[in-house]
Each structure stands twice: as C-alpha cells, then as structure tokens.
C-alpha cells in the first residue's frame, strides 16, 4: 500500500480530544503517535522522531511553553499548539518560543489540517534562499525581480510592502507574529511599533485588492500576527 504519511505526535491529556484527532488525522493519511503528558511528549519526540507535533498548551504536569522550550533545545520539528480563545499572550509566547502555528479551541478539523499542511510544507520545502518565485492561488511573487502579480495583473509595491509580502509568502499558511515581521522588515529596534505594521499592511491589502472584511490573501489575527491565506485543494 501507500507509504505511511508524515508522522504526527499528539500531546494532549484529554482522551476524547486525542481520539478525534487520531481518527481524523489518520483518515487524512497521517501516522499518529500519542502522548498523555508533557514529559511523555518530550520523550516521544526524541524516540519517535515525528514530523510534526500537535501540542496542547494546557497540560497537567508541565507548562506547554516549557515543552516547546525543551523540544526546541535539540529539534526544529514543526509544532502546532492548541490554545484557548482570548489567550493571545499565550499564543504569542508560544510562537516566540518556537511554535510554528496554533489553533484556537474549539476548532474545526479543517482548520487544523490546513495548519498542519502549511507547517509541513514550509518545513519540507527548499530553503528560502533557493526560491526564486512563490505562487499561492492568484498571487505570484517574483523574488528576484521584486515583482508581484495578482491574477496576472502587476501590482506596484513599495520596498517595505514587498518585504512584508515576501515574509508572509515564505510562511504561506502559517502565522507570522507582528514582532517577527517588525524585526525582519524594520529591524529589532522597532519590534513594538505594531501600528506602523498595520498601516503598511493596510496599504498592501489595498494594492492587492484585498477586502479586510473578507480577505483573500492577508488575514489578521488580532493580538498575534498575520497569515497569508493559502487556498486549499
């Protein structure tokens, strides 16, 4: 039969959640390993060598953030965290510590799958420097010539706007925190100036013809960051 798909390690203390994750992710071709506690998860991360970790932040034995820390000490495996609504600070902290993306509980499985796919894709993909072009849906970015096309139409972007779009496109489908974007585009000194970012993104969206009420490309996740939407197959 077909090869077993990428291996996903599920770290969650709730048996019902593990059950439905196992069933649905398996149905989509992933190989599932489970861990009930944080320490168990860290161990299994080493022994089972998963391709992705789905980590619940609300673990009983140790803090989910610490699990991220410990894993990140020796592994770059993509981590998608499960967090609660209104836990923006928690999400940002996790992302800063090295998590790659998050889903807010309660979530639909489609959302989780999208995140998982995005995380795996970027990881498995070739190094950013080697890319010359990124295509997502109707968006086409020529990295070498700094040209952007939307549905075939060329769009003129300022330097900063282009940098923002590039960063989002390189992480297509994944969340990019405000701080990260500010660091990358403006430099470490400007990490807190989120309103700058917002203004520029606003301009960018306008130029891309994106409606903030119904975004096609750039989705804002308040308190956390931006995400470039990837149309699902």
């Amino acid at each position: 039969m077909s090869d077993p798909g990428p291996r996903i390690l599920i770290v969650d203390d709730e048996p019902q959640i593990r059950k439905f994750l196992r069933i649905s992710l398996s149905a989509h071709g992933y190989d599932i390993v489970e861990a009930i506690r944080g320490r168990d998860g860290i161990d299994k991360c080493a022994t089972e060598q998963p391709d992705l970790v789905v980590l619940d932040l609300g673990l009983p034995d140790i803090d989910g953030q610490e699990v991220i820390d410990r894993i990140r000490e020796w592994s770059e495996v993509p981590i998608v965290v499960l967090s609660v609504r209104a836990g923006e600070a928690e999400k940002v902290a996790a992302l800063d510590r090295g998590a790659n993306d998050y889903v807010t509980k309660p979530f639909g499985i489609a959302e989780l799958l999208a995140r998982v796919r995005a995380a795996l894709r970027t990881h498995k993909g070739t190094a950013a420097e080697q890319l010359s072009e990124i295509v997502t849906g109707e968006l086409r970015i020529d990295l070498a010539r700094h040209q952007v096309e939307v549905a075939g139409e060329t769009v003129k972007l300022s330097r900063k706007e282009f940098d923002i779009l590039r960063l989002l496109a390189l992480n297509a489908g994944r969340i990019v925190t405000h701080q990260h974007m500010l660091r990358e585009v403006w430099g470490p000194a400007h990490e807190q100036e989120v309103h700058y970012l917002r203004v520029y993104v606003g301009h960018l969206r306008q130029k891309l013809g994106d409606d903030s009420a119904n975004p096609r490309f750039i989705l804002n996740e308040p308190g956390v960051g931006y995400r470039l939407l990837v149309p699902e197959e």
Partner: protein
Amino acid sequence: MAEEQDRPEPDVLLEEAKKEGRGRLKVFLGAYPGVGKTYSMLEAAQARRREGLDVVVAVVETHGRKETERLLHGLDVVPRKQIGYRGRVFGEMDIDALLQRKPRLAIVDELAHSNVEGSRHVKRWQDVEELLAAGIDVYTTLNIQHLESLNDVVARISRVRVRETLPDKVLELADEIELIDLPPDDLIQRLREGKVYVRDQIGRAIRHFFSKGNLTAFRELAMRVAAERVDAQMINFMRTHAIPGPWPAQERLLVCINESPMSKQLVRTARRMAERSRIPWIVVNAQTPHHESLPDAAKDRIADALRLAESLGGEVVTLPAESDLAGELIRLARSRNVTRIVLGRPRKRHWAALFRENVAGRLMKEAKAFEVTIVSPVAEDGPGQRIDPERPGGIRFDRKAYGWATVTVAVATAIAFGVEKVLPLPNISLVFMTAVLFVATRFGLWPSLYTCLVSFLTYNYFFTVPYFTLSVSYRGELLTIVFFLVVAVLAGNLAARLKAQVEAMRTTAQRTANLFDFSRRIVAAASLYDVLWAAVHHVASTLQCQAIILLPKRCHGLEIAAGYPPEDHLSSTDRAAADWAWKHGATSGWGSGTLPAAGWQFLPLKTQRGLVGVLGISFKDNSPDKVRLEPEQHRLLNALVDQVAVAIERTNLATDIEEARVLTETEQLRSALLSSVSHDLRTPLVSIIGSATTLSSRGGKLSDDDRDQLVQTILEEGERLNRFVQNLLDMTRLGYGALQLNREWTDLREIAGRAVRRLEKLLQFHRLELDVPADLPSIRVDPVLIEQVLVNLLDNSAKYAPRDSRIMLRARQVDNTIATEVCDEGPGIPPDARDAVFEVFYRVRAGDRQAAGTGLGLSICRGLVEAHGGRIVARAGPADRGTVIEFTLPLEPAPPIQDETKETKDMKDREKRE
C-alpha cells in the same frame, strides 16, 4: 401552678449556660486564720498534678512555713508582677502571664486580698474572675471574716472590723466550697506553738480575737455559710432539672436607709435576711426636701450604702418624697409586692424628731400587711468611723436669708403701723403672716420660723397693750398672738415644704427635659457621626465634663470616634481601662473596681445584641479622689449611655439592612443566572446528544441527507454552545471587574468581517448587508471584545428578525466617534423597555415565551462598549419598525508615522532611479 414548675426555670438555665466555658472555682473556706487552708489547697493541687493536670501556682503565701513550702515542690510557679508604689516594690499576681500560659488549674491564695495601687484591678477576686472567664480553673482560700455580708457579725463578735471585704456574689461564683475546719482548742494549741501566721493588723486584739468563744462563733458562721451554699446549689440543681420543690412564695424585702451611719449595717442585715429566705430585696433611699441640704459626708454615706447594696445584689430605688415619707414608702412597698420592711432605729431621739414624722411608728400603724423589722445599730461602730453628731435637718446658717427675713419683718411692721388705723388688731396679724409666707417661699423653713418668732415678738411689742412691752394685758390679745404664732408656724412650714417640693420637681423636670432633649437629638441624627457628636456633646454639657466615645476598629481594638471637647489622645492607663471595659462589658476607670487610677471612667455601651462601644467621661479639673457621681447623676448617665448605645446600634442596623438588601439583589441575580445557565447550557446539548445518539444507533439506516442534517445540527448547536460559554465568561469577567482591554489599532471593517464569518451559519437565513467603509479612521480598541459585541448584536437580530429579512451592519464617523448600527426588521423593542433591555437577564424576567438564548447578550454588549468609553442605545428602526442598536466608540488621534513621508520620498527616489 404546678405545671409551670415542671419546666426548668429559664434564668437558672441561662446561668448554667453562662457557666459553660468558664473555669471552675473551688474555695477553701476557713473560719479563722490558721486552720490550714493554704496547706489543704496545695495538697489538692499536688493531687491534681499527679493526675496529670497542668497546675500552676499564681500566688501563694507560705509565710515561711516549711510544711507549706514543701508542698510547692514540683508545681510551676508563675513569677509575680513587680509593681512599685511609694518607693516600695510589691509582688502581685501576674494576670497576663497566666492568661498566656493558660494552665488547666491556677492556685490563688487569699481571695480577699487588695491589690496594690497600679494593678489592673483593685481586688484579687477581680483578677480571679478574669482567669475564670478565660476558662482557667482556680483554687483559692478565704476566711469567713472577709465576707461583706458577715462584716457586721464578725465585728460584733470580735470587736474588730475587717477592712478587706469580698462581695458575697464572689462566693456564689464558687462551684465548690471546701470547709477547712479545726476545732478551736486545736487552733489555740497551734497558736501557742507559733504555727499560725496572723495578718489583718489585728495586733493587740489578737488575744481577744482568738478567744475560744469567738472561735466557736466563727466556726459556726463558717459552717452556716457552707450549709447555705450547699442549700443554694441544691435548689439550683432542682431548678435546672425542673424538680418541683416547696418554693418560697414570691416575697420581697424592702430596706429603708438614710444618711445615718448605720445604713451600711442595715443593707448587710437586709441581705442576710433576704438570702436566708431566698427572696429578692430592694434598698430604698427616700430623698426628702432637705436631702439637698445635707453635708457632703452624709451624701457620701448614702451613696456608699447604695453602692454596697448593688454589689450585694439588691435592687436600688431612689424615692423622691416631699412630705409623706411613710406614705410613699408604703406605696412603693405595695407596688413592688414587698412583704417585709426593714428599718433602722435612730440612735438618738431628738426634740426635732417630734416635728419629723416617726416613720417606723407610722409604718407599724399603717402597714398592717407588712412585716416590719427594726434593726438596732451595732454598739460600737469600730475604729475610725466617728462622725460628728449632726443636727437634724442640717441647718445651714445662711446669713443673707435671715437678713432678708429681718428686713421683711421691719417692712411688715411699717405697713402694720400704717394700716393700724384702719384694721382691727387681730387682722394686723395678717400683715405679719404675709411676711412669714414671703420668707417661707423665698428662703425655706428655718428662716420662716425665725420670721414667725420675730413677727410674734414685734407684734407683741408694738401692737398689743401695753404698747412697747413684751407683756400682754388682755387675755384676748394674748390668745390672738398665740394663735398667730401657731398659724404662722404651720403656714410657714407648709410654704417652705411647698417651696422645696417645687424645687425638687424643677430638678426632676430638668432631668426629664434633658433626657427628652437628648433622645430627640439622637433620633434626628442620621449618620453615625452625627449620633456620636450629639451624644458626647450632650453628656459633656449635662455633666459638665469631658466625654469621648470609642468604637471598635474593623480588625481589633478600639479607636476614639468622637469627643467633646475633641480629644485624640489617651494615656496608656486610660487606654487599658477602655480596652478592659470593652472586653468585659463592665465599667472601669475611676469610681469602679478596675484601674481606678485612670483619669477617665469608661462605661460600656451595651444593647441586646451586645457591646457597640465605650463611653468615657472625665472631670479634668478635679483629682480622681474627689470626683464622684451623685447617684442621680449616675442614673442619668446610665440612661444616656443606654440611649447612645441604642442610637449607635440603630445606625449599625441601618448599614446592615443596606448590605443585606444588596446581598439579596446579588442573590437574586445569582439564582437567575443559575436558572438561565441551566436552561441555556442544556438546550444545545439536547440537540447534540440527540443527534449523535441517533447517528450512533441508526447511522447506517439513515438517508445521506438525514445524516448530513444531523451532523450539521451537531455542528451548529456546538457552535451555539460555544457562543453561550463565551458570553458567560465575558459576563463573569465584567462582573468581577477582571476585564482587561488589550487595545490595538484596528479597523472596524476587519472586526465586522470576522464577526460575520463567525456567525455565517446562523445568518444564512437572513440577508446581511455590510456597510462599513474601509477608509473609516482606525480605532484603538480590543478587537476581540468589539468582535464579541458585534457577534452578540448579530446573534440577537438573527434570533428575532424573521427569515429572509434584512440585517444591516453599518458604521460611520460622527464627530470624534465611530457610530456602528445593527438594524433588523424584527418585532422591535417597546419604548419603555429600550433601557431595560440592556439589563442582565431582562429577557428572563420578561417571561420565557421568547426565543431561546440568554438574556446576557445585550448587557454584555453594554459592559464591553462602556469599558471602551463608548455608549450603546436601542432605537426603533425606520418607520418605527424593527430595532436599531447603535453603539459609539471614541476616536483617538492616530499616532504619527514619521517614516511615511521619508519612506515615500525614498521610494519615489528609488523608483525614479530604476
């Protein structure tokens, strides 16, 4: 009658209940010093120690006797507190150390001992009371001579009046009395052997004191006391267990005292009689008009006797009696169901006694229903109690009065001379009569009598034949002037009495007016502060003193709440007295038995609910020794204290009621929340569980369409439940003030888009129109919370608007706010409900015929919007149909983005170059 006695008497039960938690007191009672009380007590203590009890010696006098000292071995001794007084250091019992140590049993020798000045209490038995109240058992020793009620008997027997006395009620505190008995012969033997230590400064009278006759008498006394005690315990037991017994009929004893020095003896005698018959007793002091004119020493005697009576357990009554002393007494006796009256026989029989009524005589004649007992004074009053023989009535020589009297007579004489021509002789007497009456009403009895005499002489001298002599020729004229004298004396007497009565009434009226005024002011005072200020002001001005009120602090201790004149500072002694009064609910400070050296007297403010505070008074001018309150002043003060306590309690109760009301409202909200939560949580679950179970049981047999629908139901209801949970969380956070706004610059259009997407499924049956321009100025809000506001408003609209109707979400800038509207074409909100609709659970209260969902949504919207500094209102839609809910959010000026122009310029330059 018999049935009544089958129930235990409530008073007795109450007494028993009060005894719970108290330590037990065992008294080793001896008839005379030297019987070996301390020895027996220590033996018992050792026995307890061997049983394993924690026994501690508080204070024991061994007087150097080896056998006694030996008994101290092995017992913990709490070191005495060293108190300095007049250059010497005395060791007294250290109460605080004992309270801290909290032994099971404390040994305290010499219960009747008086503590040295500077100690907390005047008497050691008060210290013991504190120990008992703290739950510590106490063994103590006591000699018969120290009992207050036996003081006279002891004095009579031994010719020695013992000074250190103990109120009998202390002995009644004792749970157990052990009589240490030693036959007199044995004691005398021990005396000879030098084994007895004798204190009490008996000195030279020692041989007389320890005569065999005396010792026997004392021994009998001691046995009788012990027997009475046993008897009382038995009756108590019977009463507690509702055993019917031959109860004495409810008799009462009345004892009348005056300023005579035997009043104290009378009080003690009365008490013994009352105790023997186990009946309540009343002490009455009849205040006749010449009470005011008594010398201070006499007034003090009366006050002392009354205080003694109170301490011995009698009821004190002060009877104002202007003339008919015996009559008033009889009336009082009848009204209080008195069956026995006790009087003292006056020591000397004065000629003036003829004028004053013989109360005893009258009582015996008229009070046929009473038993009248006349008590003779003790032959010798003991050393140091000699009093100057006082003149009856206490004549005060008021020069001015007599001067005026003389002048009046002179004037009358002049008038009489003038009138002589017109009036016949006998009628001239009327002129002098007028003079007598005038003087009587102005100056009292004795000046009026003086006037009578002088008038008589003048009348005789000037107006009777032979003129200008004191002899009278005509028999008729002699009779006239004699009758004149008699009538003048009587009339003068009457007028003087009238004057005194009016004076007394005026004083009483003043007192009553004072109390009335006070109560009126207190009632009018609304706040606690007003009450306190009115109280201290009134007390200070009435008693001419300084007054302060201390109230309990929230945590522990007392603080000064009001003072007149304003006082902030209390010395440490005063503070200690105030704290003591508060803790024990009894008077402390000068004039009381606790910390009498304090400059203030503190009275507890007591109500039925308990203590509410402490009132202090101080006479700053007088030294503490001289200061004393008249019994009337004292009673007035007590009345005022009661009123103040009640008023303070009233304000406290008002506050309590308010708090209770708020609590009730909170309770109501909580129960409404519970019922709402219970309903609204369960409702989606019904569909979810129902659908899931259907799928599980009939899954394969359902059509695809049905299966899809059930699955959709589970999904939608799940989301609905999620929204409800979110509402609850928001509600809780708003309620606890735990709402934290994470403001960031954001666009309303973006928030609107997210809200709409969240409710996609719910809004699928309506036509949603979104009118939020993208170029609206940015707002600095918490995007998650404003999204919640829109979600709740859209949810509401979807709930009430009919299918296929329009729901509009519109936003525009209005001055320096952003105004957002959610409009629907539903049934609308009636005008009178447009405000109430934002209240929590409004829907719940309106009844549950409406669509399901919590009543929380709109109130949460209001909470969230107002947290941002905005406002939310409900209106009718166009043409008065439908509903429009509009909320405004304030605009802040956007922070400048400096780089922009530079950025644009750079960019333009770069583009030019390219």
